Structure formats: structure tokens, C-alpha cells
């Protein structure tokens, strides 16, 4: 903020005064965007929790203790500080499992969103840059993918191939690229028509060089915005699959799976369902707020 405010004063002394660069403007906007700050804060905090899970968790997430089954959280009568958020059906510490669950969600979210990014951006840039039949083919692929019931297909494929971490990541990634495609395609069409691309072509740059050096760098901010949104979507997709029993399998602490396990005791021990859902909600809202904020900051003209 202070850098921008100084400009009018400086202009008195200096003959030539540069307007603030796009980077400076973006930083100024970031400093005053509360949603962006909250979202980024949540995301950084939870990533740290995921990385340092072994140091933060009071117990091992798999360690069962049958005498201590289904203990309530500390604020409910009968709870104690040894198990701050209580224990599950086989006496595992719920807080430790929730902390390790951060790892599962973030790992799957980041990996699946990366796969979606690679597929969507590749197709989007090719369709936008070359146009013609490439564009028609990609558009048809997009229409088909949008028509397929994503969750149902993911459930079926994960179940029939065999549920494992890698399979869940790949299936979610392969089914979540359309948003990347739609945005990069139209952005590439726009950039392609600009003068600096024509200049690069006139100076003898190949299509490949133009795509790598002129187009992709200009797409990066849009791609990052979509990546944060897709991160949230992929995390919810994993939780849904695991909840339905066709995702991450026991005893891995996935929040979706924990909700499914807690569902059996929903009438007497609602916290088994409520707590993992709150973690999930906070993580996804963090990603969405950061995405909304990044979009406002990098392309304020699209702000609603």
C-alpha cells in the first residue's frame, strides 16, 4: 500500500514516472482482499498440519485401544484430555485420525487437480491455438465428458479397477479437466490474436515456441485460479467416493470414510459425523476463498 501511495509525491521530483506494474497492483489488491487472506491462511495452516502430522498427533492414527472405544470429546460428559476429540469404534484417537486425514485429502486433491490441469491445459491450448478440426474434436470430447455422470463413473471405475490411493487419484484427475479446458481454450484464442504473437511468428518462432514462450506464461494466472477451485472439487470428490465405500479403504484415515464409519452411531454420537465434515468444509472453503481472491486480484475485470 505504502509503495503506491508514495507515487504522487515522487512524481514531483522525477521527470518520468512509471505507473505501478501489474505485479505491484496485484500485491496491493492482495493486501486488501480479506477473502483471499482467510483462504490462503486456512490452506497454508492445513498444509502445515498435513506435513507435520506425526508431530502434532497425540496418538498413532491406527493404534486401537478396545477399553477406550467410542469415548466422547472432552467437552461432552465422560470425555478426557488423553483423547481430546474422543475415540472411534475401535478406540483410535479421533483427533489423530483427523490430523492424518488432512494428509489424505491434500495429497489426493493436489495430485488429482494436477492430472486434470495437464489434460485440460494441453487440450485447451491445442484447441485454442490450432482451431479448425482440432478445435472441433476437442469441443466434441468436452461435450461428451460433460454429459457423462462423473461421480457414478468414478464410483464404477474405482470399484472395478480396485480401490487404492493411486487409482482414486487417477480416476478423479481424469474426470476433472473440463474447467481447465474451457478457460484455457478461450484465453488462448484471445492471446493468439494479439500483436506480440504475430511479432513472434514474424520473427520466425515455431508454433511450439509460441505456445511455450508466449501463450503459456500469459495463461499462468488463470490456470492457478482454476487449480485452487479444482483442488476443492477433487477433495470433495474423494470424500464422496470414500463415504460411499468406493474410495480410500479402511484403515486409512480419510474424512469421507470416517463420516461413513461414524454414520452407524449417528443417533448417539453425532460428533463422529460432525467433526470430519467440519475439517472437510474448512479445507474446501479455504481453497475456494483463495481461488475467488486470486481471480479478483489477477483479473479484477471478471469480478462479479
Amino acid at each position, binding site marked *: 500500500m505504502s509503495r503506491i501511495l508514495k507515487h504522487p509525491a515522487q512524481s514531483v521530483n522525477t521527470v518520468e514516472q512509471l505507473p505501478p506494474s501489474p505485479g505491484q497492483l496485484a500485491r496491493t489488491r492482495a493486501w486488501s482482499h480479506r477473502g483471499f487472506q482467510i483462504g490462503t491462511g486456512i490452506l497454508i495452516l492445513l498444509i502445515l498440519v498435513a506435513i507435520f502430522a506425526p508431530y502434532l498427533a497425540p496418538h498413532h492414527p491406527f493404534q486401537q485401544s478396545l477399553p477406550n472405544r467410542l469415548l466422547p470429546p472432552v467437552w461432552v460428559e465422560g470425555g478426557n484430555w488423553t483423547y481430546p476429540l474422543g475415540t472411534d469404534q475401535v478406540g483410535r484417537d479421533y483427533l489423530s485420525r483427523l490430523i492424518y486425514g488432512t494428509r489424505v485429502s491434500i495429497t489426493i486433491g493436489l495430485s488429482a487437480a494436477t492430472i486434470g490441469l495437464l489434460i485440460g491445459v494441453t487440450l485447451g491450448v491445442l484447441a485454442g491455438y490450432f482451431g479448425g478440426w482440432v478445435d472441433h474434436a476437442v469441443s466434441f470430447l468436452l461435450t461428451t465428458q460433460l454429459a457423462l455422470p462423473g*461421480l*457414478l*463413473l468414478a464410483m464404477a471405475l474405482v470399484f472395478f479397477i480396485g480401490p487404492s490411493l493411486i487409482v482414486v487419484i487417477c480416476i478423479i484427475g481424469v474426470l476433472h479437466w473440463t474447467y481447465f479446458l474451457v478457460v484455457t481454450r478461450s484465453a488462448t484464442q484471445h492471446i493468439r490474436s494479439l500483436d506480440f504473437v504475430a511479432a513472434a511468428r514474424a520473427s520466425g518462432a515455431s508454433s511450439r515456441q509460441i505456445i511455450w514462450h508466449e501463450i503459456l506464461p500469459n495463461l499462468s494466472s488463470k490456470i492457478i485460479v482454476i487449480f485452487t477451485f479444482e483442488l476443492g472439487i477433487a477433495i*470433495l470428490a474423494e470424500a464422496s467416493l470414500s463415504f460411499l465405500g468406493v474410495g480410500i479403504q479402511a484403515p486409512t484415515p480419510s474424512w469421507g470414510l470416517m463420516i461413513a464409519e461414524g454414520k452407524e452411531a449417528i443417533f448417539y454420537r453425532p460428533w463422529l459425523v460432525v467433526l470430519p465434515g467440519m475439517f472437510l468444509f474448512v479445507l474446501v472453503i479455504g481453497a475456494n476463498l483463495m481461488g475467488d481472491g486470486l481471480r479478483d486480484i489477477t483479473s479484477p475485470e471478471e469480478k462479479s
Partner: protein
Amino acid sequence: MLNYILQRVGLAIAVAFTVSLAAFLLLNIATDPAYAIAGEEADPEVIEQIRIRYGLDRPLWVRYLDWLTGVLRGDFGVSYYWNKPVATLVAERVGTTLTLAFSALFVTIAIAIPLGAAAALNRNTWVDRLALWLAVSAQAVPNFWLGLILIILFAVMIPIFPVSGDHTWLHFVLPAFVLGASSVPPVMRLMRTGLIEVMGSDYIRTARAKGYRGQTLLLRHALRNALLPVVSVLAVQLGQKVGGSVITESIFAINGLGRLALQSILGADIPTVQILIFLFALVFVAMNLLADILNAALDPRIRIR
């Protein structure tokens, strides 16, 4: 106009065929149906017999054509798991899922349109901010978790609604809310931006200058135009509701197509699963086509393009 419609119909048919190919191939490559019928530990000889009995020894493309011609004649095959024609299974449940989908759409409309309009008319006030925060939150809430929370609140703590089943309309209230809530954010945002745009347009200024005020201005001039894009998005959302029924029906134990889909997957019932994937995709394609045609009918600029 006719040209445009024919073009959209042609595309929809092409997509429908591609989707049928995808549904069939993906499932039959992901797993060996013979193992799915017999179980993983079955005798190789038994597997071989099953392969011959069900015609699974034929090449993949022959099986696909066989399946597709059957589907076109209305013969959806026989379920391995339920031992019934898949068409019967679907017919028994389609009404329930459609009831759920339309009730959910009603919930979406009842929440999203007034909220979006209120946000647009009170732009940058606390109403607007509350609406946007609601939208952001609704997008981040896991659907299945919302369902369970509502069960805890309104079926256990304050027992107003039944926990599960599909016998009376009361059973559909919570599921319709859960399924409908997921469409509120996009529809609300569209309503809001649409109405803001319309309220700033020249013809509204003219109407104001002519002396129209308040409700008349809003209802007779602004809302009608702001609703046009919303209508076609609602058609697409209805298509997604059918696909979204999987989670909602499973939580509330509603015997519709979504629950059938989950049960068939867990029962490794490939004939039922591939028909359901195909049917859900068809509904989506049909609703998209409807949205395109509605759009073109309401906005001449689209069909001339």
C-alpha cells in the same frame, strides 16, 4: 432457427452414441464381466463356462453392437445381481428419482432466485455479502455430510421428518433440500449478475424516466429479462440432479435410480451399471439440448451466429 435446432439435435445424437460407447468400453475394459459374475476366486473352468453362456467370448465390438441394438429396442439386458431384466429395475425406480429431482429443482428455485434478486437490488450491502457468503459456503459443504447433519437436526434432535424411506411426501423434504442446495450457488450468482446487468441497462432507465417505480418496474421489466438465462441453466441443473441422486438416495434410503446405481456397483452388476451411466448421460444431453433450444428461442442473436 430450424437449421440451428437440427444442428443441435445432430450433435446431441452424436454425443449420445459416443457416451454409450464410453459407458460400455470403460466398464468392460476396467473389469472382466465373467469374473464379476463368478467372483474373483472362481474355478477357471467355471469362468470359461460363464464366458460362453453369457456370450462374453465374442470380440468386444460385437458385444457392444449387440448391447446397443438391444438398448435401442428397449431391451436393457438382464441384471446379474438382481436376476431381473434391467428395464424392469429401471422402470420400478425412475418415478421416485424424477420426483426427487423435480422437488430438488423446486428448492433451488425457491432459494436461489429470491436470494439472487435481493443481492442484486441491495448491491454491496450486508444482504449482498450474506448471499455471497452463503453461496461460497454452500459450494464447500460436502453434500452427503449436509444430509447427515440435517438427519441429526431434524430427524433425531427435533423429530419433524422421517430418517429414511420414500413412502410419503414428508420423506422427500430433507433429500430434496440436500439435492437442491447444491445448485443454489450457480443459479443465485447468475440471477444476481443478470439482474445487476439488466437494472443498469438503457431500457430500464427509459422505464424509470417514464415513471415506472418499485414493484412494477422490477416485475414487469427487469425480472423477466434477468430470468431468461436462468431458465436454461435450470434445465442443465435438472440433468445434474439425476446424476446427483446417487449420494442423496443412498443417505436417505430412497429406492430410486441413484441407490440402484450404488447397489449395482457394489454388487459388480455390470449390465445395470452401464445402462444407468448411459441413461444419466442421456438425461443430461436431453436437458442441454432443451437449454440450447430455449436459449435460441429467447435470444435471436444465438441462432443467427
